[in-house]
Every structure is written in C-alpha cells, then in structure tokens.
C-alpha cells in the first residue's frame, strides 16, 4: 500500500473510533425516551436498562483486564475483545495507538502543525517513565490496589469528558438558556425549551456537577496542552497502556522497513518521530515497542525510503524498558498501596461520608478492582455518585461515592450496578435493593436544626419522601410550644433504623439547605457486616 492510502486509512479508522467512543459515551445515560412497558413493570420484572454496549472501550482494554486479574477477580464478560486486541498487538504492534485509541487520536489532532524536534524537546529516555508507571500499576494491583484507571487512557478520557468537559459545556449552555427562558418573547421561551431538550441528552439532564470536576478537567487540558510542547507527549512518555502494548508488540510482523540504498541518513525521521521509536539515524534503529504507527516518518522522509511491510523483523529488538525504570516502578507499586492505606480507614471504621453505590463490594475488594472510570457517575440519573475527594482516603481518590445533598439513590434504579465494567459494583436487582434490603447507609436527625424539633414550625418533608414501605421515618404528633413561645402542634420525625436503606432522599429534599437536618452516613451499610448498627 502506498503512503497516501495508508494515511487515509489511518484517518478513517481514527475518526470512526473517536465517533464510536463519543456515541457510546453519550449513550451512557438514562435517556428520556427509555420505555418500559408498564404492564411489565406491574410485576416489577423489568428494571430500566441501557441497551447499547456503553462499556465497550473498557472491555477491550487489556490493562484493566490484567490488573483485575492480578487482583484475583476473573472478569469474563467480553474477554474475547481484550484477547483479540492483545493478539492483534502481538502480530501488528501498537496499531491500537495509531489507529484506534480515541485518546491517542485527540493527542494526534492536538499535535497537528507542531514541527518540533521531538528528541530535542524531551530527552528520549523520558519514554521509560511509562514503563515505570506500568510496573507500579501491576505491582500495586497484585497488592490489592487498582491504580490502572487513574492513568489508563480510556478511563482517563471517559472520566474527563463525563465529569468535567461535557458538564462544563452544559453549564455554559445553561446560562444561555436561562437568559432565553427569562425573556418575555414567547418563541424565544419555546426555543430555549427545545434547545434544552436537544442538548440535555448530550451534556447531561439537569446539569450534573461533580466534586473535583475542575481538577479532572485541568488535568485533561494540561495533558492535551503538552502536545504543543512535544507531539503526542502522553503516548510517548506517560501512557501505561501504550507501555503494555509495546511489550506485547515487541515481535510485531508489521515493520517499518527502510530501504538502505535510498536512505541518506538525514535524520528527519528520528527528529520528527513523536514517540522516540527511532533512536538513531540509521535504518536499523526502529524500535517496534515504541512505534505508534502514526506513519510520520514515512510521511516526512524526503527519499521515500521508508515503507510499511509485513515481514520478519530483524534481530529481536533490545528490551525496551531499562531495568532501572522497571525496578523503580515496582518499588513505587509496593509502596503505593501502603501509602494509600496508612490512614487506617480501610480496616477501621470507614469515613461517615464514604457512601458507596448499592451493590458495591466490601471496601478491600472494591479498591482492588474499581477503575475510577466514571461510568457509574455519568450514568446515575440523579447525579448522586461523585468522584471521591477525601472520603475514601488517599487510596480511594476518585472512586465513586454518593453525596446525598447532591442526589439520592432511587430505589427502583440499578443502572450503576448494571454497567460497572469491572464488577466493583456487582449486578443487583431492584427487588433485592428493596426487600433484602441493600443498605448503603443510615439517616439520623439533627434535632437542633430540624424545623419541628427546634420548634420553628411544621415540615416533615423527610417522612413524605422516604421511599421504603413501611417508612423509615415516622413522626409523633405533639402539642408543644414553639421557639417563639406560642403553642404549636408539631409532627416530630424519628428514624426507624431497621427500615432505613440510606438512599439519602430525605437529606436531599430537606428544606434546611446548606447542611440538612437529616443526614445520611455510611454506617449501617450492608456491604460490610461490621458496619451494621443494629444487633
């Protein structure tokens, strides 16, 4: 194949996969036109589901597979894709990076027009960093802390788009709609509704917002910005998935052959290769572990000496990562789980705010597999699930926690558990949630702030919204004197802990804004029997 065709092919493939990523990304939501035949919900047999394979890119990711396997969890669904991807890499090298990876494509696009001498911009040795990251991730995976998702490109991309970039754009659009909705002109009002209905399926219904969203977005933008400094910086220096694929693809049959007769050793291929896959000016210097198959070298070679061939590579290339890089990564991998746990949260009482989504595994197992990909957070229709800041300790940074003030867990919903790709949230049914029940925490009333208890007037919103039957919130009607001294008949709420599931809707709807007068904490959750409250 000649160069032109190859480049067209690459662009087509990159575009197709970015589009696929975006389509699946957008579909990871409870759509407003989801339909369940209500005569079927009569038997409560049908929970609502998302039919598209929105977890596709997580399923094909060999790094996630490997780390969950190391954590002792066999994750079989869709394993064929991951195996296929590895087999492809073994034969064809890192074509995934050049042709498929949507994050790689974003970097590729962001690098367009940059003609720097890559090796001068960053020392070629910096490419070893990604192998150190890989080693650290694998070792800490064995020790029970899944870190892959923090730097895995597919998780990172999904998380950044879902928790920061898209909601951010949504918020900007919202201010425009609010202005339109406030207008006195009828058709502008209607247009604002129509626009909102078109846009909310894409940018999020009800304008979701996420804790640490700003940080996630800044990290993403910084990584993209680095391309202006050295093209595909991320792929060359940081990407642990690239490192893994590089190791698997060492003996690739798809080689970039240089015609020695034509090569005049101008060195252009070396200086323009974004991935330091060419360590010297000579044709033999091509390193298959580093090559992204971006075809830049082919494209820039003035002699047209380089071609892509299926062939036996020459002498097996030197093992890409140095021993030093691997060792330092492994040492980091040994320490990180300890660093993450030294606060003792994992083994002592958990943080009161560490409310995990229903179906979450016990904390130790949870941290061993949760990839922090953000799928559960994006898909939660009430915006309840957020990336953790300090709630789960250092080790659990960005893992999912429920913030009741922001959203409650709907009793009939099991979307997060259906979609969690790694099984950190195991599949549950609405029936199980309701009748077993699966508790995620428990509520308590702050009598000082509660309107009736403090004598400031009637309320009892919490009792109204409590979804369990019988209700976990009941009230006593008493004749009392209010805070002003006037006689009042008030309904005073109490929690019946044996019925409370910790869904958090009481805290969510309590009119005492800021800090609600009814508060849900993780204690009482069923995923760890030691956290139970009642005998």
């Amino acid at each position, binding site marked *: 194949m000649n160069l032109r065709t190859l480049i067209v092919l690459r662009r087509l493939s990159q575009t197709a996969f970015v589009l696929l990523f975006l389509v699946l990304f957008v579909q990871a939501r409870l759509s407003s036109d989801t339909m369940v035949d209500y005569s079927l919900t009569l038997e409560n047999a049908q929970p609502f589901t998302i039919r598209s394979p929105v977890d596709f890119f997580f399923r094909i990711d060999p790094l996630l597979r490997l780390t969950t396997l190391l954590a002792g969890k066999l994750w079989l669904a869709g394993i064929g894709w991951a195996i296929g991807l590895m087999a492809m890499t073994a034969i064809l090298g890192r074509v995934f990076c050049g042709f498929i990876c949507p994050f790689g494509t974003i970097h590729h696009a962001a690098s367009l027009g940059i003609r720097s001498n890559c090796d001068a911009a960053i020392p070629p040795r910096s490419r070893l960093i990604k192998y150190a990251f890989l080693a650290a991730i694998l070792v800490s995976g064995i020790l029970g802390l899944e870190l892959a998702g923090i730097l895995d490109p597919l998780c990172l991309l999904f998380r950044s788009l879902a928790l920061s970039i898209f909601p951010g754009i949504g918020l900007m659009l919202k201010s425009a709609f609010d202005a339109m*909705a406030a207008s006195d002109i009828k058709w502008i009002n209607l247009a604002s*509704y129509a626009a909102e209905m078109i846009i909310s399926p894409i940018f999020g219904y009800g304008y979701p917002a996420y804790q640490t969203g700003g940080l996630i977005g800044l990290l993403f933008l910084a990584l993209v910005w680095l391309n202006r400094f050295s093209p595909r910086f991320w792929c060359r220096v940081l990407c642990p998935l690239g490192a893994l694929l590089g190791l698997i693809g060492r003996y690739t049959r798809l080689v970039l052959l240089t015609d020695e007769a034509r090569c005049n050793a101008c060195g252009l291929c070396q200086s323009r290769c974004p991935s330091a896959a060419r360590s010297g000016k000579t044709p033999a210097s091509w390193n298959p572990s580093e090559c992204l198959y971006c075809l830049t070298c082919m494209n820039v070679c003035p002699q047209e000496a380089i071609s892509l061939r299926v062939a036996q590579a020459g002498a097996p290339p030197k093992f890409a990562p140095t021993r030093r890089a691997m060792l330092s990564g492994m040492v980091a991998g040994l320490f990180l789980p300890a660093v993450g746990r030294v606060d003792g949260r994992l083994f002592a009482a958990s943080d009161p705010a560490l409310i995990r989504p229903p179906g979450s595994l016990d904390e130790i197992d949870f941290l061993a597999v949760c990839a922090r990909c953000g799928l559960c957070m994006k898909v939660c229709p009430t915006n309840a699930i957020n990336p953790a800041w300090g709630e789960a300790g250092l080790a659990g940074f960005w893992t999912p926690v429920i913030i009741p003030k922001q959203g409650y867990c709907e009793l009939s919903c099991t979307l997060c558990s259906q979609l969690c790709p790694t099984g950190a949230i195991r599949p549950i049914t609405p029936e199980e949630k309701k009748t077993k029940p699966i508790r995620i925490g428990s509520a308590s009333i702050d009598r000082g702030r509660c309107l009736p208890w403090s004598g400031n007037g009637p309320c009892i919103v919490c009792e*109204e919204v409590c979804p369990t039957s019988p209700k976990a919130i009941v009230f006593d009607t008493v004749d009392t004197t209010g805070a002003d001294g006037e006689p009042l008949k008030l309904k005073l709420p109490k929690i019946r802990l044996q019925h409370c599931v910790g869904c958090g809707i009481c805290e969510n709807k309590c009119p005492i804004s800021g800090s609600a007068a009814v508060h849900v904490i993780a204690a009482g959750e069923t995923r760890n029997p030691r956290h139970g409250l009642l005998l």
Partner: protein
Amino acid sequence: MPLNEPISRRQMLFRLGGLAAASPLSALLQTAWAGSPNMLVDASGPETNCDIGRLTEKLIAAAGGMGRYVAKGDVVVIKPNVSWARAPQYGATTHPEVVRAVVRMCFDAGAKTVRIADHTIHDARQCFIVTGIGQIARETGAELVFPASSLMREMNLHGHRLDMWPVFTPIVEADKRINIPVAKVHSISRLTLGMKNWIGGVGGRRNALHQDIHQSITDLAHFFKPDLTIIDATRIMIENGPSGGNLSDVLIKNRLILSDDPVAADAYAASQLFQIVPQEIGYIRLAEKWGMGTTDLTRLTLQKVTL
C-alpha cells in the same frame, strides 16, 4: 381578589401567538357566567377485571362529553400525579389508562395539542418510565413535557402566602387544564387529592411549602384553577402515603370522581373514599372560604354511573 394580575400577560399572549390564555381569573369568570350548577360525577366499575379506559369514557360521557370542556383547536394540558418512580399498581401515581382515555377523548373533541406535564419529585425520566405515563404519551401522541429549567418562570401567584414563585409555564399557558390526581393519604396535609396536585405545577423551593401546607395548596389551586378535575381512585393508597411502595398500602376501588368544581371534587373524594369530613382538611376549608368552590354537595348535580 386582586384584579391586576394576568391582564398584561394575557394581552401579550394574544398578540404573540393568537394563543388564548386561560388565566385563572378568566376561568373563574367563565364558571361564574355559565350559571348552570357545577357537575359532580362518580363512576364505579366492577371489583375485578375493571376496564379502566371504559370507566373513564363512561365518566366523561356522564359529564356531558369532552366536547363540553374542550373546544376545537384547544391546547389542553393534563396534569397527572407522577411524582414518584413507582409502578402504577402501588397507587402512588395516576393510573396510565385513565390518562390514555382522557388524552384520546381530548383529541376526539378536536384538541390541537395535548400535553402531559408534571414537575415530579423523583427524577422525571425515571418517573415517566416507571409509571407508564411516558408510554401513554408516546402511544397517544400527547406531548410529554419535562420539567426543564427553561420552562420555569417567575410569576406572581397573588396568593395569601405565596407571591413570586417559579411556575411550570406549559400548565398556565394552555387553553384548558385537566387535573388528574390520584387519591392518597398524606402525612401532613392528610389527603392528597386534586388541589394538592398543583404543587407539581411549580418549581423553586417546594420543600418549604410544607411549612404552611394548607395555605400553600390553596394559593396554588387558586392560581391554576383547572377546567376539570378527575380524581383517580381506581386504587387508593391508605398507608405510607404519599410514596407507598407496598401493595398492602393500596386498596382497589375502581372509582373515578369528576367535577368542574375543584373544591367539591376534593370534598366528595375525602368523604366518600376516606370517610373524612371535608372541613377537617385545612386546604378544603380554606379553599371554600376563599370562594374557590363549595363543599355543600347539594349545590351540585351529582350523577352516579357504573360500568
């Protein structure tokens, strides 16, 4: 009663879309002018295998047919109660078959557009899916209006307690309003019937309304003033209201109550379905006091029909 309220908006709407704005005031005047006594219909079906769609048709037929309330080219808004993401059999939400029949009859009477709108308590998408209302909208061709923030608009409710408040605009801007609540017990207002259903017509800090629930309900009911109230008592929730969640909270009644007097509808439902003296319920008492209707059922023509 303040007279200053809807005039300017009304004029503006006439100018801008030829839309006839049925403001609360004009609706009130219409009923006053109509002269004939208000209507009260009580339809009941067999205990088992009741065809709720046909029961609804029978109810409307007894009330003189939908053509009496809906004119050709009208924009009709139906306000069911779909506050909770609960399957219909739990009695927490309006029965989808009642809504289906009403939508169909509105179209048959020549309605241009029928909208189904509710500002739900649970997430609206989940509510519309689970209650079956979303499915009905799709199957009948009614428009399902989501409580989007772009549809909430500050308006003066001119209530005794509530003044400026974000209102769910499609409900006020329709030509005809049909309120289809479900009959349930409620912890603080005792019963949720027709007038209480208007809490789903506003946005804003609705959780603060409980602090003066009866006056708030009265103010909202006064503002929204439906053309027709149909109380869904096909099954009623007698325990754990208003959210329920257990079949043992629910009684099958297969009954529907219709009136063009919102106070009478609630009063009749309270006494007939729950054996509660209407005046004991704060908002019914207040609504009667402010002249929004009557609890004296002898002043209405009562018809009972059975299927």
